[in-house]
Structure formats: structure tokens, C-alpha cells
């Protein structure tokens, strides 16, 4: 095709990716991707985990180099070999995991890599002046001299956006920006992005949350298995259509489950507090109970004590103050326990961080399949282990939870995220625990596996287990849990029946702006 007749339309294209391919070893992450993003718009990219969204954007930002294909920025062919090429081309990126130096100030982070000269003195004055300008123009206020480690997550994201703008970004890419935000913080972010769009900045947002695509974007592209399978104008599509495009088949968005039949309390926490070694309260007088046959969900922005709660209940962290009653056993600061003992109380724990804690990547699947149960008598003789018993057990787990490939001697790292998670769930659920502690059961798991995992958790409840579920996905909590408890700064700030909860209400509670249960108790008698 002659290039002359396309110039007029290409001038309005901020980004034009042509035929981008990238593979890692034997895995092809991007296959002949073509993507066009119009200047001055907000463009969404959706897809399941592992669909290749992050890889594509990392190529655009020069973090990886594409194996093949061409990149055109504002109509001009721009080879991007590293991040400085991308920055020079006017591209800025806000990564899912913030790229900030924790013991630096906001100002130092903003000027890092964009200093004014070899000495720091002038850089500091210049950066401070520019930050003031950006604050005036976009309403992006930050404390310039605050240490990154002292700032809340929402502020960190703002610093990342400022970093990109400071470098003169005209195209801003955000990778899963709302994962760590409350719904209200998300709304603020979206307001900022819209005002950036008004000023002519092109915004690309990667997400797996279809709701955000619908409220924010002008156009949307769907990725599946490394390819762009569809592009739509947002106003002309629907959540259902996008979901179907993402998965490649029709998806049911809800879970069938009968009302809970709660029995006796199998887990009771009373006035539990935990302080970290800086003396900061990570858990602050938490009291809750989970009864047999119910799922209690814990909502909250990550880092508000949910992880510590799971750690105390599973015996990893000792309680600082208060008491835990777990399936008839009492745990107090004086009578601390350990994970092995807690397991013997018929408690199972699916950890939040699958790769770090749930299994050992270097172990074969059969070794990962006994993690935490490795001292059990079925797997051990007097001195030596019983390899055949371990392998047989793993076969059984893999069959019961449909783990693929069903090879117990394959390295754990070589299973997909969903299959790793199913193996962990199988390991923890197979003994039929009375109390099940679950953290982020479907994080990084593809939609097919999510349905399966949800069904298993509900089945566990229906068999009479008490389930405590920590999840960052409000959708998951609302559809899976029977009651939802909201945590903020280590405290319980509210509780609602799942059937009565909605996203807005939970969001307000997560930001501690709306506390239906505690307002009553805190009222001062006149």
C-alpha cells in the first residue's frame, strides 16, 4: 500500500503497532499484534492473565525488545530498544508494581534519570519548580520531601504519574492501576486521567476489570493468547461481549449457591492485636467469628491487616494481644503456636502469595504437594521418606482437582498459574479441614479455573467447613461470601451481609468513610 493516502489518518494516531511478536523461550507472549490508538483518547486493553497485555506494553515502553514488528509513534516509525528510547518518544508508564526507590523522597524519585546536570543542586530546584507547575495544571498535589516509604499507595501512584509527566510524556500507559486502590481512589484516578485527556494526553489503560473499561475508555482492544482478537468503540459494546471475547466462549458471571446454613463457631477471634517491629499496629483489637457452613469474606485495600490476620490464624505470626479460638483450641500470646500445630487442629491455609509461599518453584509437583504435610506419618518411615506414597497422593490430588498436566514429577514452576493454584487448593482441601483460610484464591488465575475454584470453595462450605476468605476482588467477595467484614488500618470497620453489599458501600467502608456498625458504638452519650 502506498503510504501517502494514509498520512492524514495516521497523523491522529498516537500509537500504531504493526505485527509485533515476542516470545520467551517456547512461550509466545505476543503474536503479530496490530494496535492503533488515536491521539487524545483513553484506550483500554483487556484480557485474561497471561493474554500478553503487559508484555505488549512493556515492549512499547522498551522494557523488552520485540522479536519482530514495527512501532509508529505519532505517525513516525520509532525503534524502541530501551526505556530511554520510549521516554524520548514521549511515552510514560505507570507500572503495576511501582518503580519507586523507597528510601528516596518524592522529589528524588521524580528527577531520577531526568536530572538537569551532573550536580544535584540545580536538579532539585528545577524539579521542585516543575512539580509546582504540574500541581497547578493538573491538580496533582504531592508532598515533595516525603519519603516514599511513608506515603500511602494512592499517593505513590500519583508520584508515578508525575514522573511520567515530568519527562514530558504525551502518551501515558497504566498497567492494572486500580488493583491497590479503593473504589473512591479509583474514581479520583479516573478524574485525573480524564483531565489529562482534555489536555491532549493519550492514555492507555491495561486492566482485567470490565467495569473500569466501560466507565473510562473511549476505545477498547481485547487480547487473548497473545493476540488482539477485537477492537471496539466502548460505547458500542457491553461487558458481556467483552468477557466473551476475552475468554473465547460465553461466560457465566455469577455463582450458584444456596443460602448458608451456619452451625457452631469453629473460629473465634477476640480482641486480637499484632504490632510490627516498628511498634505500628498491624491488627488492632480485631474480633470476629466464622461458623461451620459459612464463608466470611474479608474486604479491604491491601495492606490493612488482612495478611496479618491470615498469618496469625494459620500460626505463622504469634498473636500480640487477645485470643484466638480455633476448632476448640485456644491460642494466646502466652500459648503461641506454629503452622504445623495449627494444621493438626484441622485447619488448612491457602496462602495469598502462591509463588512465594504456596509452593516451591524448584520442587517437583509431588514435593510441593506435601508442603506443610511433609512430616505426616503416611509419607515417612523411621529415617527415609516414602516416595511412592507421595507420588500416589499427588496423583490423587491432581485427579480430584483436574490439575494439568497430571505429572507429579514435573517441576512446580512449569505449571500455569491456574494449575499451580489448583494443586495448592487440592493439597489444603483434600484432608477435609474444619476451618479453611483462603487468601486471594483466584489472583492471576484464568477464568476457566476461577469457576472451578469457586465451586470447590462453596462445596467445602456446604460440607460444613468454616471458610475465611481474603480477597482483593470485590466481585469475588460479593458472589462467594455469606458475610463480608471490612478492614481498615488493622481494624474491623464494618460488616454486611453479602446479599446486601454493593461496590460503592464496600468502597466507602474500605476507605473508612462509612462505618455502619461502629458508628453506633462510638456515639458519645449526650
Amino acid at each position: 500500500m502506498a503510504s501517502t493516502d494514509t498520512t492524514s489518518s495516521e497523523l491522529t494516531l498516537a500509537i500504531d503497532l504493526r505485527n509485533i511478536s515476542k516470545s520467551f523461550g517456547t512461550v509466545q507472549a505476543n503474536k503479530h499484534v496490530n494496535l492503533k490508538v488515536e491521539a487524545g483518547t483513553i484506550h483500554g486493553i483487556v484480557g485474561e492473565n497471561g493474554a500478553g497485555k503487559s508484555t505488549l506494553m512493556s515492549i512499547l515502553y522498551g522494557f523488552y525488545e520485540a522479536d519482530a514488528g514495527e512501532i509508529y509513534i505519532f505517525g513516525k516509525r520509532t525503534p524502541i530498544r530501551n526505556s530511554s528510547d520510549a521516554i524520548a518518544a514521549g511515552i510514560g508508564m505507570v507500572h503495576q508494581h511501582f518503580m519507586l526507590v523507597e528510601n528516596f523522597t518524592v522529589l528524588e524519585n521524580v528527577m531520577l534519570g531526568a536530572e538537569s546536570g551532573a550536580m544535584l543542586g540545580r536538579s532539585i530546584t528545577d524539579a521542585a519548580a516543575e512539580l509546582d507547575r504540574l500541581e497547578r495544571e493538573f491538580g496533582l498535589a504531592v508532598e515533595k520531601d516525603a519519603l516514599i516509604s511513608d506515603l500511602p499507595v494512592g499517593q505513590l501512584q500519583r508520584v508515578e504519574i508525575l514522573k511520567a509527566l515530568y519527562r514530558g510524556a504525551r502518551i501515558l500507559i497504566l498497567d492494572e492501576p486500580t488493583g491497590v486502590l479503593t473504589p473512591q481512589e479509583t474514581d479520583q484516578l479516573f478524574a485525573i486521567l480524564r483531565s489529562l485527556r482534555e489536555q491532549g494526553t493519550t492514555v492507555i489503560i491495561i486492566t482485567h476489570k470490565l467495569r473500569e473499561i466501560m466507565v473510562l475508555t473511549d476505545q477498547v482492544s481485547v487480547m487473548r493468547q497473545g493476540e488482539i482478537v477485537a477492537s471496539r468503540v466502548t460505547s458500542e459494546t457491553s461487558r458481556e461481549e467483552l468477557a466473551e471475547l476475552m475468554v473465547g466462549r460465553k461466560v457465566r458471571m455469577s455463582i450458584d449457591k444456596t443460602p448458608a446454613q451456619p452451625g457452631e463457631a469453629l473460629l473465634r477471634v477476640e480482641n486480637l492485636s499484632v504490632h510490627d517491629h516498628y511498634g505500628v499496629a498491624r491488627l488492632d483489637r480485631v474480633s470476629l467469628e466464622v461458623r461451620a457452613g459459612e464463608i466470611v469474606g474479608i474486604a479491604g485495600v491491601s495492606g490493612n491487616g488482612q495478611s496479618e490476620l491470615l498469618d496469625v490464624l494459620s500460626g505463622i505470626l504469634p498473636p500480640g494481644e487477645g485470643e484466638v479460638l480455633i476448632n476448640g483450641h485456644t491460642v494466646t500470646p502466652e500459648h503461641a503456636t506454629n503452622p504445623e500445630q495449627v494444621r493438626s487442629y484441622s485447619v488448612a491455609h491457602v496462602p495469598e502469595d502462591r509463588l512465594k509461599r504456596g509452593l516451591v518453584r524448584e520442587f517437583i509437583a509431588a514435593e510441593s504437594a506435601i508442603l506443610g504435610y511433609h512430616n505426616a506419618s503416611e509419607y515417612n518411615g523411621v529415617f527415609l521418606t516414602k516416595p511412592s506414597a507421595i507420588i500416589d497422593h499427588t496423583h490423587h490430588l491432581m485427579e480430584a482437582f483436574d490439575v494439568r498436566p497430571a505429572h507429579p514429577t514435573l517441576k512446580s514452576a512449569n505449571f500455569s498459574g491456574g494449575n499451580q493454584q489448583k494443586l495448592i487448593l487440592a493439597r489444603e482441601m483434600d484432608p477435609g479441614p474444619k476451618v479453611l483460610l483462603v487468601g486471594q484464591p483466584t489472583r492471576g488465575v484464568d477464568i476457566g479455573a476461577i469457576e472451578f475454584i469457586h465451586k470447590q470453595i462453596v462445596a467445602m462450605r456446604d460440607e460444613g467447613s468454616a471458610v475465611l476468605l481474603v480477597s482483593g476482588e470485590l466481585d469475588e467477595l460479593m458472589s462467594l461470601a455469606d458475610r463480608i467484614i471490612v478492614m481498615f488500618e488493622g481494624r474491623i470497620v464494618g460488616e454486611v451481609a453479602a446479599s446486601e453489599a454493593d461496590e460503592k458501600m464496600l468502597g466507602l467502608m474500605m476507605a473508612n468513610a462509612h462505618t455502619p456498625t461502629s458508628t453506633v458504638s462510638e456515639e458519645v452519650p449526650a
Partner: protein
Amino acid sequence: MDANITTEIISTLSATMRVSTPLILAAMAGIFSERSGIVDISLEGKLLAGAFISAAVAAVTGSAWLGLGAAIVVTMLLSLLHGFASITHNGDQVVSGVAINIIVSGMTVVLGIAWFHQSGQTPSLPNTARFMPLHLPGSETIGSIPILGDIYTKILSGHNLLVYVAFLSVALTWWVLFKTRFGLRLRAVGENPKAVDTAGISVAWLRYRAVLIAGILTGIGGTYISIAQNASFIREMSAGQGYIALAAMIFGKWKPVPAMFASLMFGFLDALSIRLQGVEIAGIGQIPVQAIQALPYILTVAILASFAGRAIAPKADGVPYVKER
């Protein structure tokens, strides 16, 4: 009696300056390297290599300066090797460092015997081929002032050039780390290399520069040991000072000035223990010479035991930077 004690104190403090010099230089080298995220156990090997090369070159050419230059070239090459293994190939940094130490330990003797046939020593150097004590200007006039004069003429003055270079290196290290763009990026890359990479700065090149600076500093430190503090190379003459410098760096929390004071403390205790050699102590008797010789090592362990747990290393220290997938 009193005068005697004063002389003792003055000469111990003066010895402290001399004994601390290689520790200070190596500790600064360690700070550059580890602030960039590269653990450098091979400070020890680089000191030893620097000591050998400078003594060998000075013996052949008769020039201390050529000795120093050659030592710096060789220690920078060793730094490049360490960088090649740990930056380019993401190898285990501790293993790479240990390998360099063992290579140097063997090669200095192999080359020493092959070149000089003196069972691993280099020939004894004339003073003209060494770094000799300098007298700071105005020693005579200031020397007459009581106390201050003694401090100036007998403790601060009368050392060789490299001693002053060591103290200068502390100021320079501080200035580079905290007042320059390079220092800002260096500190950043040791904390969060990904942040540096995504800011469009090459992680590898930054880290290479850091280890090269460590090479220069250890080259000076090694030269000091063989041709300033002593007059020839003796096998294994670095005697663990590279490791002690690492301990001083940790004790100094990866900061130049505290690390210098930690080095001075090690140096002082060392100088003191040399003074104690052969001295009868009431109630204990004569302390065995081996106990005195072991003292720096015991102290290193004691200091690591009491403080290391609380010291916070740069976050990415020792972790190869791999763009993960």
C-alpha cells in the same frame, strides 16, 4: 611517667592512622560496590593483588608511582571480572568474590616465585621505591603548641601520602554519593534497579562504574600495604583486612563517614593489641601473642553479632538484576 603514657597514647593513635588506612580504602570500595547492589567479598583478593603488583612493579622499575598505577590497573581488571560474572552473567556474587580471592591467593605466589624466586616474596624495596612519610607544612611552628601541637605533628603529620589519600577518599565518597547525579543513580540502583531501568538508565553500566571505582580504591589500599606500610610483598599479607573492611562497612551502615570511624576503631584496637604484645598485665599475666593476633577477627565477629542484625543493607544488594518474566 606521665610523659611516658602521653608518648604511648600518641604513638598508638599515630599507628591507628596507619593501620586503618587500607581498611578505610577498602570500606569505601565496599560502599561504592554494595550501594550499587553488588556484594564484593573480593575486596580481600583485590587488596592482595594490589599489594603484589605494586611491590613487583616498584621492585622492577624502582618507582612507587608506577607500582601504584599498575596495581590500580590490575585491581580494576579484577573488578571487571567480578562485574562480568555478577552483572553481565547474573552469577552468584559471593561465589564470584570467593573465586577471585582464591585465584589471587594462588596467582600472587605463583607469579612471585616465577618472577623473583624468593619463595613468593618480592625483593625488599629501597626507600626511593616506596611511599615515604611526609611532613605536613608548619610542623615546626605548630609543634610547639601544647597538646594541639602534638596532635598535629605526631598524630596527623608524618604519614605517607596514601594515608591522606584514604581520608580524602572518605570525603570524596560522601560527595559523590550524595551530591552528584551519579551518586543519586548509584544509590537508586542498589535499592531498586527496576526503577532505574524504567527511568531509562542502564543498570549494568552504572554497576560496572561502581565496581571499577571499588577497583581503584582497593588498588590504592593494596599498594599501601606492600610499599608504604611495608617494603616488600609477603604472601597472604592482606590477612583478612578486606573482610574486616566489609565488617566496618556494615557497622557503618553503608555510609562513608560512619564506615571510616568503624575502620578507625578496628585500627585502634589493632594498634592497641600490638602495643600489648609482651606486656605483663596485672592479674592475667602475659597475653599470648596468638590471642592478640586473633583479636581483630574475634572483634569482627563480635561486631557483626551485635549490630549486623539491625543494619539494613541496600535492598537489592547481592541480587542480580534479571528482567523477570
